[in-house]
């Protein structure tokens, strides 16, 4: 448990250092993600302890953005009267994005000869 957390935080720290050193617009944790991914693919196996911590963090990913999303209370005056439009935009956009991704894959698998 502890070892997994240390690995993740070290990569997070490394990502932050790289992000700052290059004054990169890509967030530090994403650079940490890429660095960890490269090392996992390189070594071809995942430390079981890291595995445990990573799956519990990703299983409760939703909890982690509650504090930020609750900040919506300070935007209520601004959001008032726009809720319906925002809802429609999000609905249409997610349907279009999902349909596009799915249809590209469908088309490719149709044109590709059966294996």
């Amino acid at each position: 448990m502890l070892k997994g957390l240390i690995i993740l935080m070290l990569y997070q720290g490394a990502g932050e250092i790289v992000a700052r050193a290059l004054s990169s617009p890509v967030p530090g944790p994403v650079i940490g993600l890429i660095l960890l991914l490269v090392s996992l693919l390189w070594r071809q196996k995942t430390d079981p302890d890291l595995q445990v911590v990573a799956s519990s963090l990703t299983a409760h990913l939703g909890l982690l953005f509650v504090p930020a999303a609750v900040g919506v209370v300070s935007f209520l005056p601004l959001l008032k009267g726009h809720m319906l439009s925002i809802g429609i935009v999000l609905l249409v956009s997610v349907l279009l994005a999902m349909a596009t991704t799915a249809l590209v894959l469908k088309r490719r698998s149709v044109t590709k000869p059966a294996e």
Partner: protein
Amino acid sequence: MDLREIWVYLSGSPLFSLILTLVAYQVGVFAHQSMGRSPLVNPVAIAVLLTAGVLLAIDMPYAQYFEGAQFIHFLLGTATVALAVPIAQGWHLLKGRFAELGLALIMGGVVSVVSSVGLASLFGLPLELVTPMLAKSVTAPIAMGISESMGISPTLTAVYAVSTGVIGAITATHLLNALGMKDWTARGFAVGVAAHGIGTSRAFAVHPDAGAFSSVGMGLHGVLGALLLPLVGPWVVKFLAT
């Protein structure tokens, strides 16, 4: 014993915000499970509404709440790094399919940005409500980082991202059936690209292959978004502002 004094102490301590957030989320998870994991009952949406409701009811300023809740918030960065693990594990599924999945990801990402920003400006939404749309199909922890780096509200980005995930999880099965998609891997990937984490947990509930591809789609969209949006985003914002 003065109850008021105890309350003043408690509400000033991080403990109150932490308990409130964790309990609200637990209530959400419980409701989700007892409703047969229906996508209509989303634990994150319930947790946000409950917590926000309590803050409004007891008249606690958001800044004071966040002082305590920041300890949960901090773990977002760590959880972002942890996304490398499911991507690495799904990597063998991608072999030989990089070209088609990459193309599908880019097309899906572009459609997501163009349709949301375009429609939002068409509806005449104020600029500060349009710009958080840019990253809304990217998984929330990464999306917030991207927005923050561009000077866009991370809060609204998180709210849009959560709503997008919830809407995607509710509609995915109907939409993909209507499109005649039979391949679980393609279905999962599309859900992960469009509706990130919340879509992914829905995909796992439907089929393990769909879940695996969904987490890979979400992870790759997160990385691609973090690499490209900071380049394209400011240009879009400038264009909208004129």
